[in-house]
């Protein structure tokens, strides 16, 4: 029997006022996979992410993570659940009054009882792992570039070695080399930590390079899920345009060359 999905969304409906974003959305994420969520701007990818991590109350539908309901849990259960995932928001969402080091230490400080030395050592490692220079540790978020803020946000998301990381457009705004490094890092963490990655992205290179499965969001629901090869077969104009457009072809050629 197949393993139960680590994230399961059933019949999700979300609304802002009378503007319906999701209308009966179903999605399963399997343990250990990297799933890429794609869709046009404003189709509700970020909103879906917020609903899954329990920041937003859906109008209807059921969301379970690790087999537990994210909305209808007690405070203690939610806290325990939250410890097992890390979230990186679209614009980093670093705490602007804390230095990068303090930002990365924040989840450790909240959730665990570590000595300051251990915390500092682990934070320094995480910051280096995401490819930030060492002197970035003491910098304030406002002193970092947009790409550096993303990396610091990622370092904070993986500070506790979570089982699931939610990444909202991690490679947008990075240079191609940095983006490739980011992909490699995500893949490596998946390999070594057995991470499950919920990846919202527009980056076709990322989709090619590391995603096991892709879920396409459109018209308020998941239009199709499957591997890259399966996506090319989907008979829907938007999906066709997305995966067979000029940029997609360039990414494909690049992948075949390498």
């Amino acid at each position: 029997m197949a393993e139960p999905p680590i994230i399961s969304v059933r019949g999700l409906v979300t609304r802002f006022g009378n503007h319906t974003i999701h209308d009966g959305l179903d999605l399963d994420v399997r343990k250990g996979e990297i799933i890429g969520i794609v869709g046009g701007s404003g189709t509700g990818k970020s909103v879906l992410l917020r609903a899954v991590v329990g920041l937003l109350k859906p109008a209807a539908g059921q969301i379970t993570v690790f087999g537990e309901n994210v909305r209808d849990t007690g405070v203690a259960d939610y806290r325990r659940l939250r410890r097992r995932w890390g979230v990186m928001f679209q614009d980093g969402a670093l705490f602007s009054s804390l230095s990068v080091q303090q930002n990365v230490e924040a989840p450790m400080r909240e959730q665990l009882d570590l000595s300051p030395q251990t915390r500092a050592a682990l934070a320094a490692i995480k910051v280096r792992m995401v490819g930030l220079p060492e002197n970035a540790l003491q910098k304030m978020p406002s002193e970092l570039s947009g790409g550096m803020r993303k990396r610091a946000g990622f370092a904070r998301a993986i500070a506790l070695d979570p089982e699931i990381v939610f990444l909202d457009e991690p490679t947008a705004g990075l240079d191609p080399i940095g983006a490739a490094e980011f992909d490699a890092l995500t893949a490596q963490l998946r390999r070594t930590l057995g991470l499950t990655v919920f990846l919202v992205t527009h980056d076709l290179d990322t989709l090619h390079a590391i995603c096991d499965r892709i879920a396409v969001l459109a018209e308020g629901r998941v239009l199709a899920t499957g591997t890259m090869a399966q996506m090319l077969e989907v008979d829907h104009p938007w999906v066709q345009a997305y995966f067979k457009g000029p940029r997609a072809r360039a990414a494909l050629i690049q992948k075949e060359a390498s």
Partner: protein
Amino acid sequence: MNASALLLRDQKTPPQITLSEGVLALKGDLLISTIESLDLRQSAGDTIDLSGVGQFDTAAAWAVVTLERRLQRAGVSPVITGANASQLDMISTLRQNMPEGDAPKLPRLTIVDRLENIGRATVSAMQTALSMVAFLGRVVATIVGLILRPTRIRGTAIVHHMQQVGLSAVPIVALMAFLIGVVLAFQGAAQLRQFGAEVFVVDLIAISILRELGILLTAIIVAGRSGSAFTAAIGAMKMREEIDAMRTLGIDPIEVLVAPRVIALIVMLPVLGVIANFAGLFGGMVMSWIELGVAPGVFQARLLSNTDVWHFGVGMIKAPFFALIIGIVGCFEGMQVGGDTESLGRLTSTSVVVTIFLVITADAMFSIFFSIVGV
């Protein structure tokens, strides 16, 4: 079954480290939550054995590399055995990313450093004062420019701010002034009754409210209400790079954001001052009637016959200057906000403190000035 399988990671075997015949054996689940119970201060052993390890995360790899470095410093290069491919992968990632040596310690402050800090703080306070004066100059120049070319005036914005700083402040200002009038009458009555000079309470109330308290307290309330709101609003825009966006679009933030606020204040503060004067006199009149039996008619007659209109004039002359101080400081501090939320909070409170300080200083200078010119 699914729930138990998924919750498996919650059940942990505590990690252990044992040394036998040169083999440092690690056992149990090595995870960030348990890693600190492991004693890493080992100095003997030439092999690190991971075959008994259950769960393994980056903190575990950090522990292994720390152990390895420690042994290397003791002169042995340990071999790592019993690790699977992904653990080795993680350990080598850690080796590349772990800074050598311990985390640098922050230097302690010496007396020279403290002196230097005082010096720097003084210089930067002076620079702030200078740039505030420069800002004042720019705002005044902009407002004069607007007066010369009235088509550029943003009427809607000015009216909006007039409502915010003026109309909405009327209830609180009136209530405050009324209560001040009551207090003055009450305290004045207690003293004046001893001399049988009750009726002079009218002069006492009229002069202190019209000349000083009405406008001063109004200015302080408006500083707390609107000055801080200016700083917060402009500061939030600065933080989200909206001000930079305006500049790149060729919109002058002083003309669009600062000038309407300052103009609205200059118009509305005198109006609020007049309202405060009336409310204060009314409060005083009510209290004199109740407490001293000075009938409203007598109060009014004495007020009109005995109070020089200059007392009112002196109060009103100060109003636009106070308004300028509140507007300039509030907007200036907003412009100083950097990229972080903390500076927004800090500067908002600075803005109120500096404004009130400057308003009271200005009031003192006006007092000196008016006593020299003799009104």
